[in-house]
């Protein structure tokens, strides 16, 4: 027993140490997570809920599929604007919630979501020696001008995924209007000094891919895209494309031009696929003729193939969104900064007061419970940070209740311990009995709490008050689970440690003086 107890105590200390490392300092970067994720009501931002406008005969499978695509599309659009930790999620069957923390312009936010995405296909710009043009060639110019003067539409400078950079990435866009050339970076800011981007010299200059008649190949000509498995023995995920009649002809004309037998992966043989100026993928053309369908192969995982197919399909959203949004909210951040600070103080003082009360009332067990409470708060914060759980005002409410639950378990156990001691048991036996007897009440009250949390979470996933109600349910649920561990395992382990140190025969430490015995 003693040896096992020591091991448990060590495990507890390891968990505690790990949690401390995770949360200190609170805005540090740990395991890929930075700081706590705060809800919109704390940091300010924009919250929009859209109703998808499906035709009446859409089946629920169609809807599910379209909703997935819509969520991915909106996510992509927003990612390009560098909003930190946006939340884009499906609500109920046919609604989409978009939360943009820190975003203050509600009109711009709506514009971002409601825009129809533009899917187009591009090829590398070729100079007069037949060589592909790179961004470095533009950086080297004294005066910006298009290198292939025959093509006057804009250039997109983007790195394909094959390089060391990982994800394909758009660096800048160069456009001409009259005699003036404008270079903007990926988020839309004008770049005055080209050399500031010179580290991206390896980006390819992409021009619009056109058929022989000059018609550009765009998403409108794409009939569908779907993830499939290749027809090989070791089947690999790929994306299959289907063009409409006009698209089939234009695509073949382009393929004939870009195809080069036996060539390697070089820019002039690639077809770049762009959504809203962002490069999605740059497959190599492997055949001079496709006859209306093609597959994009590569080292895709199933998920990646799914996502690419979704994006190809969703150059525009798969269905229109009803305007104005069902629910729109802009929360000013002014409430935020100070509020968060005060909440921390309030939380800290609340916990300290509770600890003071527990120690004054229960003495040694109270002290142990206070230690358990510190471990509880630390582990909880660590989970909030790593999960990450979005902390909102409602989440704060859940946190308070869960502290109550954590303390409650200890109060139950200690009251029980005193009773058992008064009935004539030794302190050691009374402690064990206290834990055993209190267990059924702790278990039942936690299970009813879990039932409540699960149902609230479900409510949150369908209704409008979603974020708040879900936040409450999640924090309370996690809190109740952790409290079962800290209030029972942690307190019991430490109490046993103390008893092993000869503190069992000093009843005053347990506020049960001999009088009543």
């Amino acid at each position, binding site marked *: 027993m003693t040896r096992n107890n020591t091991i448990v105590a060590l495990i507890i200390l390891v968990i505690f140490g790990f949690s401390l490392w995770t949360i200190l300092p609170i805005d540090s970067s740990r395991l890929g997570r930075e700081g706590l994720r705060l809800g919109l009501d704390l940091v300010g931002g924009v919250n929009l809920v859209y109703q998808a406008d499906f035709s009446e005969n859409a089946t629920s499978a169609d809807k599910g599929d379209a909703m997935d695509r819509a969520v991915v599309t909106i996510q992509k659009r927003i990612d390009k604007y560098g909003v930190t930790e946006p939340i884009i999620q499906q609500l109920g069957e046919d609604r989409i919630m978009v939360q943009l923390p820190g975003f203050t312009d509600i009109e711009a936010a709506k514009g971002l979501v409601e825009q129809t995405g533009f899917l187009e296909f591009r090829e590398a710009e070729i100079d007069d020696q037949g060589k592909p043009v790179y961004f470095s060639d533009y950086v080297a110019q004294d005066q910006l001008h298009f290198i292939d003067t025959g093509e006057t539409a804009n250039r997109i400078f983007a790195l394909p995924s094959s390089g060391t950079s990982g994800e394909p990435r758009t660096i800048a866009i160069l456009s001409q209007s009259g005699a003036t050339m404008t270079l903007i970076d990926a988020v839309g800011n004008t770049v005055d000094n080209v050399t500031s981007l010179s580290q991206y010299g390896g980006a390819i200059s992409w021009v619009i891919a056109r058929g022989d008649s000059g018609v550009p190949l765009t998403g409108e000509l794409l009939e569908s895209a779907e993830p499939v498995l290749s027809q090989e023995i070791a089947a690999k995920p790929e994306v299959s494309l289907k063009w409409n009649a006009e698209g089939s002809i234009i695509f073949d004309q382009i393929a004939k031009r870009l195809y080069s037998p036996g060539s390697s992966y070089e820019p002039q043989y690639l077809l770049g696929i762009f959504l809203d100026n962002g490069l999605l993928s740059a497959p190599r053309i492997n055949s001079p003729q496709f006859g209306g369908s093609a597959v994009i192969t590569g080292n895709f995982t199933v998920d990646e193939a799914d996502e690419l197919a979704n994006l190809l399909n969703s150059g525009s959203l798969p269905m229109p969104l009803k305007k104005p949004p069902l629910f729109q909210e802009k*929360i000013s951040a002014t409430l935020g900064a100070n509020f968060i600070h005060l909440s921390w103080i309030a939380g800290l003082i609340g916990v300290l007061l509770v600890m003071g009360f527990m120690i004054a009332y229960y003495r040694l067990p109270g002290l142990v419970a206070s230690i358990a409470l510190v471990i509880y708060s630390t582990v909880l914060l660590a989970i909030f940070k790593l999960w990450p759980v979005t902390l909102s005002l409602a989440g704060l409410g859940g946190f*308070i209740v869960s502290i109550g639950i954590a303390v409650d378990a200890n109060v139950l156990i200690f009251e029980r311990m005193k009773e058992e001691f008064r009935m004539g048991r030794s302190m050691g036996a009374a402690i064990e009995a206290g834990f055993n007897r209190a267990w059924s009440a702790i278990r039942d009250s936690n299970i009813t709490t879990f039932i409540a949390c699960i149902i609230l979470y479900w409510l949150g996933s369908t209704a409008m008050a979603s974020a708040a109600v879900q936040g409450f349910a999640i924090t309370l649920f996690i809190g109740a689970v952790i409290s079962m561990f800290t209030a029972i395992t942690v307190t019991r382990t430490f109490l046993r440690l103390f008893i092993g140190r000869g503190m069992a025969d000093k009843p005053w430490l347990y506020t049960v003086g001999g009088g009543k015995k």
Partner: protein
Amino acid sequence: MTYNIIGKRFWFFLVSAVLIAVSIISLATYGLKPGIEFSSGSILTVQFDTQVDYDQFQQEITALGYPDAIVQRSGENRFLIRTGELTDSEKQGIEAALTTRFGQVTEAQFNSVSPMVAAETTRNASIAVAIAMIGMLLYVTWAFRRMPSPFRWGTCFVIAMLHDLLVTVGIFSLLGGLLGWEINLMFITGLLAIVGVSLDNTIVVFDRMRENMIRGVSANFEIVANNSQIETLGRSLNTSLTILITTLALLLFVGASIQNFVVTFLIGLVAGTFDSVFVAPGLLVVWNKGEWGRFIPFRRPSLEKA
């Protein structure tokens, strides 16, 4: 036996009845003032750089074609305008007109909820509460399956929870009627928190009754209940006290923005401790002893001697 709590059960029922009556009357008279989350329409909060007079501001809003709009001052040179659902262009129109009249204006906050959502929120909340009740009823009935007629335990458990919710909502409605408080998400959060605490309190008392039954403390259910109430009283008060401490700390330091949460929670905490400790076991005793007749005046059977 030092105290006889259960013997006074009808006094507790009386207190309960008064609370419930007050709640129902208040709900019928004042109702609940729905905040933006529960009604449709738009709320626009604007902030001016310069001094703006309330009356002039209201005149301007009326002149813009929103005579029904509710205008409130919500800070220094900050006003809240509540209207029907605004379209983007209507909103921009208001902001442009205000800029022309009063100078630089910043949109501090904007909410807009379509009528469909408002109806749905209420409906879904009711469904969730109903499902939660059934879930608890089933679980408690199962957890107390070794007791005679476990279904009664489950029912009394759920009644205690409903009682708590009703009284909390009712008293809040009274405050709403007197002080003009609206129900908002903070209020809902407070209610949810109350459910959590109320559940715990009731379970603890019931658990002790279950244990005392199994241990065979007495053949008289009334004595079993009374012992259990006394034995768990210390725990219930201590727990409520610790929760009270954290909540008050929150109120003192965070202040008015969470006032609704704290007030709801405190009302519910008191009501919940009361009904869990005194009412729910009493109901169970009444049911087990078949004393329903005593609720009908003038037909009182003689009180059984414990």
